[in-house]
């Protein structure tokens, strides 16, 4: 474990008095390995460790009885800081119907998360409308309709439309006419490098003017998390992130990478396939998980 490895590197430093740039190298290396194995991006890890180095050199870690533990505590606190100290809830303020737009790569968990958000809002006494705008994937609309039926939440779809923007327009009119206060808009999975598809969701966003545009990202995402998050944030603009499939054993370092490059809050985590498997994001738990 990281803590044990750090204790042994610090054992070698007993009697050195204060920590210096040179003797801290091994300890920083151990943390770096842990971060990279946890899928934290190479460059993000580098910048993060620079910050840690400054903090550690500024504190008298070696005078502690357990310097390795002290060191980890500093790393842990820096991770928590980076992940966002305060949990930010879903913002659904504004005049109804308040739109929430979901986007992300193929298979990241958007449709399932749309269902989860609908359940969350329904439990809070709201009247959400699920909107199906994935006109590409076979049976995507059927999938959302089935989820809506399971939740007793209405789903708006236009079976024969191939125009996501038109679906948004009609959905809004439908929502206003029928007293829905929130619209959860599910979109097709798309690559951040597919200009046509990126433009499509940007146009949907432009029309909807969502209160929240949420990037749905798989917690198993590797080094590419930086490229993905940056692209979607720059080309479309996101307000928050939902990290899915955290019920597995992935360390979830992508969370760090995405926070570092977008500065946007991680609002929820997906922890299962069932529609109640959505939890608020807790930075401390994520930090422990990443450090292994």
């Amino acid at each position, binding site marked *: 474990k990281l803590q044990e490895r750090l204790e042994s590197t610090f054992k070698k430093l007993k009697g050195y008095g204060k920590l210096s740039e040179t003797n801290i190298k091994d300890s920083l290396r151990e943390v770096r*390995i842990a971060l*990279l*194995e*946890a*899928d934290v*991006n*190479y460059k993000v890890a580098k910048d993060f460790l620079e910050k840690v180095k400054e903090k550690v050199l500024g504190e008298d870690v070696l005078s502690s009885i357990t310097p390795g533990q002290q060191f980890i505590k500093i790393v842990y606190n820096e991770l928590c800081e980076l992940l966002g100290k305060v949990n930010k809830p879903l913002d659904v303020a504004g005049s109804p119907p308040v739109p929430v737009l979901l986007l992300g*790569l*193929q*298979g*990241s*968990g958007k449709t399932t998360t749309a269902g989860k958000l609908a359940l969350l809002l329904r439990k809070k006494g709201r009247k959400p409308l699920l909107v199906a705008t994935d006109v*590409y*994937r*076979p*049976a*995507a609309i*059927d*999938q959302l*309709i*089935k*989820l809506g039926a*399971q939740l007793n939440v209405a789903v708006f779809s236009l079976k024969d439309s191939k125009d996501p923007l038109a679906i948004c327009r009609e959905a809004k009119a439908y929502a206003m006419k029928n007293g829905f206060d929130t619209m959860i808009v599910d979109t097709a999975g798309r*690559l*951040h*490098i597919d200009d046509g598809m990126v433009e499509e969701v940007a146009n949907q966003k432009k029309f909807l003017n969502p209160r929240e545009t949420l990037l749905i990202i*798989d917690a*198993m*995402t*590797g*080094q*590419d998390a930086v*490229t*993905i998050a940056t692209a979607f944030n720059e080309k479309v603009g996101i307000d928050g992130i939902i990290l899915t*499939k955290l*019920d*597995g*054993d*992935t*360390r979830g*370092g*992508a969370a760090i990478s995405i926070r570092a490059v977008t500065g946007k809050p991680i609002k929820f985590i997906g922890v299962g*396939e069932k529609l109640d498997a959505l939890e608020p994001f807790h930075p401390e738990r994520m930090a422990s998980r990443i450090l292994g």
Partner: protein
Amino acid sequence: VVKGKPIDEDAFEGIEEALILADAGFETTEILVASLKEKWKRGQIKTTEDIQTSMIEEVEKLLLPIERHIPTDSKKPFVILTIGVNGVGKTTTIAKLANIYRTSKKKVLLGACDTFRAAAVEQLEVWAKRLDMDVIKHTEGSDPAAVAYDATKAAKARGIDVLILDTAGRLHTKVNLMEEMKKIKRVITKEVEGAPHEILLIIDATNGQNTISQVKTFHEALNITGIVVTKLDGTAKGGFILPIAHLLKIPIRYIGVGEKMDDLIPFSARDFSRALFG
């Protein structure tokens, strides 16, 4: 990596960065960079351009033993069981694979053993219609092993060449779901000796080091015979197949490069190693 310059520490850091960013993982990267440094010390590589060339050669050598195609001519019906974690592209890959077999004039049957996820059967049915193929299915929520049993029985009765079974996405850490998969495998083996002939694990190029955990766990539980890496049309490089090649030696059959029926190409060690550093 700047071409033609004499080698220094920065050049090695450059290759280390490239490998880590490609998701090759820390351990495998260390091994590859160490062997590169050895070559440099022995004077086998001199310039930074040599580094790139040497690395591509090394990776290609590592991957060549796992460049192996599915031997579908060996049995009839040749049964392929498709597995993997949630959302990696199992159902879509099955459609692409079925398309390849159809093109080579094989009689293909599909089995919809994902009885759990909303509209999973409908999704496979849309593909089957496009392929002009049949799907063996039960109602939602039924026992996936029962579908596997019926599909295998039907494949025998109809003189099918290739039977491809779709299963529900499952995280490898879910013990009950892994047990369910073992049961599906047993049911197939009882019906056709030696089947499933190919246990095909689908993995997603966008995933990071967790892929190794997936492969190890699925392999331990089911003895995987082949892998498909999907979504290589994105920006992720799928470098995790380097540790897979090194530690587990499981053949990579195909790579997925898009969402359409034709977007599946045979794995090539040569092309992959070039794309890794390209």
